[in-house]
């Protein structure tokens, strides 16, 4: 054995230093609860790209707080599914007054929880495709799924879903997994809406073109912008981001003859909310001209009002004549079976 040496105190010193970090950590977590309590606080559960500093959250907060005499508090979670799971975990005693960012596919599931109450917001004036309307949930924006391609490698973009399926198997596409992601499930429904009972056969035909199936949108889009794959499942609004924020028209969405699958984002009021009036005002504000003007260039989705001045880049986007939407009740009933069918078709079973 080596002789006992001096550096022992040093080890202890270092550990003590690290322990000091623990105290610092306590300070970080303590910070959150130190806010003023005289004004009412409206708590909104949303997804994190909505509440992020570049998302619509901060601007909406400033505008709404200017008139509501309240504090608007966004809690950013992973995505719409995560919001609903969080509410299920918390049950009726949830802190949330409003849940913002579910997609319309989740409506049956959200209603079964019994946690939501009628919004009382008049949505008759709103221009949502496929005539969406619901007493509980207020639609605040929507987007269409689309295949976005890199104009530097894809010279003849597919003009239809059929084109995409019959295309060159050496030109790869990347899609998201319907088992773990919303756009992935959306594409599954898109195929179903167009091909019905033939969907499985069409999936088998498409399979050779699929480079890989990622767990979420970020991974797929990451592969696409890295140049690993020239076509990715995303949204018709994606090119607007690149044009406005990056000043490039390199990435474009392909318009499909069969139509595009619609994803409507919705918000609802929780039954247990102590600030129901305030929550209602917030939802009304969310579909006001003022708020809708903010959404397109922060949330990269289309507004639910016809009187919004969209930036120039939005006029270059694919316009969709045939919105496709499978009724949420049917989706809820068949999701498992359709996912199984997909698994079988692309070779997992």
């Amino acid at each position, binding site marked *: *054995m*080596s002789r006992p040496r001096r550096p022992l105190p040093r080890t202890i010193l270092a550990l003590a230093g690290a322990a000091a970090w623990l105290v610092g950590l306590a300070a*970080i977590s303590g910070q959150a609860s130190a806010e003023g309590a005289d004004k009412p606080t409206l708590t909104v559960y949303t997804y*994190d790209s909505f509440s992020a500093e570049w998302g619509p959250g901060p601007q909406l907060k400033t505008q709404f707080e200017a008139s509501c005499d309240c504090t608007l508090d966004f809690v950013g979670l992973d995505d719409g599914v995560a919001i609903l799971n969080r509410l299920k975990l918390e049950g009726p005693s949830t802190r949330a007054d409003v849940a913002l960012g579910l997609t319309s596919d989740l409506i049956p599931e959200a209603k079964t929880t019994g946690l939501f109450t009628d919004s009382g917001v008049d949505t008759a004036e709103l221009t949502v495709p496929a005539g969406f309307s619901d007493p509980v949930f207020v639609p605040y924006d929507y987007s269409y799924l689309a295949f976005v391609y890199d104009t530097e490698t894809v010279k003849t973009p597919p003009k239809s879903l059929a084109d995409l399926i019959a295309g060159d198997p050496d030109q790869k596409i990347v899609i998201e997994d319907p088992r773990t992601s919303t756009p992935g499930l959306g594409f599954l429904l898109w195929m179903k809406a167009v091909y019905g009972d033939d969907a499985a056969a069409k999936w088998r035909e498409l399979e050779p073109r699929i480079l890989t*199936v990622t*767990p979420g949108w970020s991974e797929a*889009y990451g592969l696409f912008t890295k140049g690993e794959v020239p076509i990715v499942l995303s949204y018709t609004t994606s090119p607007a981001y*690149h044009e406005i924020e990056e000043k490039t028209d390199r990435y474009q969405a392909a318009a499909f003859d069969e139509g595009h699958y619609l994803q409507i984002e919705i918000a609802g009021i929780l039954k247990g909310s102590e600030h129901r009036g305030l929550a209602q005002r917030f939802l009304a504000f969310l579909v006001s001209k003022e708020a809708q003007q903010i959404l397109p260039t922060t949330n990269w989705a289309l507004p639910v009002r016809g009187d919004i001045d969209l930036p120039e880049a939005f006029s270059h986007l694919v316009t969709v004549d045939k919105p496709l939407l499978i009724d949420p009740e049917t989706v809820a009933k068949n999701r498992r079976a359709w996912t199984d069918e997909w698994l079988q078709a692309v070779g997992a079973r």
Partner: protein
Amino acid sequence: MNTRTDRRIRVATGIAAALLALGFLLGGFVVLLAVSPQAPDFAALFSDAYIRAIVGFTLLQAGLSTLLSVLLAIPFAVALHRARFPGKRLILRLFLLPQALPVLVGALAVITIWGQSGVVSQGLTALGLPRLDVYGLSGILIAHVFFNMPLAARLFVAALDRVPTESWKLAGQLALPPLGVFRLVEWPALRPALPGAAALIFMLCVTSFTIVLVLGGGPAATTLEVAVYQALRFDFDPSRAIGLSLIQIVLTALVLIATLILGRDPAGGFGLGAKARRFDAASRVRDMSDALIVTLGTLFVASPFAAVVVSGLAADLPRLLTETAVIDAALTSLAVALAAASLSVVVSTLVLLAIEALAQGRRPGRLSRVTRRSLETATSLVLVVSPVIVGAGWFLALRQVTDVLAAGPYVVVATNAVMAMPFIVRIVAPALRQANAETGRLAESLGLTGLARLALLDLPAMRRPLALAFAFAAALSFGDLGAIALYGSNDFVTLPYLLLQRMGSYRTADAAGLALLLGLIAIALMAVVEGGLAGRRRRPT
């Protein structure tokens, strides 16, 4: 205090520490099970062809990944240990880095090198050859080897470092050829480290999720962890998630027990304590092959990092560095990493001292053997417990008593600390065992007990490995994302979380910049921690 009391105290505190860690993990399960309407239906799960297929694939990919990582790490560790050149420490440090990289960043970096438009493919097309197509099992294996071969290599180099100088001297005097040295000196030193390293890598690969989906090429590549995530996150079916997770734990436990039985340690090395100075006979061929192996191995591990650096430098770094969000996130990550590593080191050390005390008993009875085995297994299994389940369970439990968002950081630290335990145990245990084999009897005959024994015998022996373990734990926790997702709040954002957030909203350049930043901070953190805690490395005389 006599030696027996001392041993009892050590065993008792060790068991308490292990129970604390296990209780934390199991607590999550129990709470989640309590709220789910029905118990997991194992019969239904086992009769499901889909589940059986993914169980098969999970074991296949994890088994192959482990085999490849370990097999490749052996020649690399041997060559690196033998070769003498400047920059050796840099390589060793670089080899800690994959653990600090968020998995998605690592996966994309691997694709930059090995993907169909990657560097290698471009080289091949330039030569008129077809592009690589790694999507599928081969892609998964490449990525897993990238993440885990360095881990195995570090463990093996540490094992070679424990070979006493006398052995090298003797090998030199006998002018043994390289193969002879390997058979008589190196292999006996590596052999006890093999089962531990293999088990650790197996567990890391069993629970692989992002890599398997991104590089797997389609749903034919699905692991149990994907199914757990799907069940809890997408279908919100806690009982199914728990059932799948238990299957995962039991299967891994079986594999672990098998490695423990197969890999029963032969008697540890014995020496007078002078360290690794080698006396290999000069050989041109051997030097060349060493250089080749070290270069290839380092290139394989370093090239994805080069990709991270290249794309990171293209980002607007000055802006990122001055953003409050980035600075806050970096500080939060540092705090979390250091707190988790400290906690983990303390708890693991207590468990290790108990394991050693049990092993050193004069006539270890059946009970103490079983206790020791269970302690060893328990500290390993934590890696296969899905963080989503632990997180969800504690979320439910904590919200009964406190504001969950405020408690979030503690849960994240605790989860990270527990997840780092298997690493720490693997790194520190051999050194402690060796010290006890060398001087345990002497200490007992001198009546050295309690804190004095800890200060004079145990800590000096563990100091270097503890420093490495601390660095590993900090790195692991610095890049971790698993635990934080559920507690996400605007006040508690770590650097990897911020990175994924940006990536999830088109800001890929920002994400690349943050990945570079994260890597740099992690490497600095590890250098400071490992260097500072280990003290000056003795001059290789």
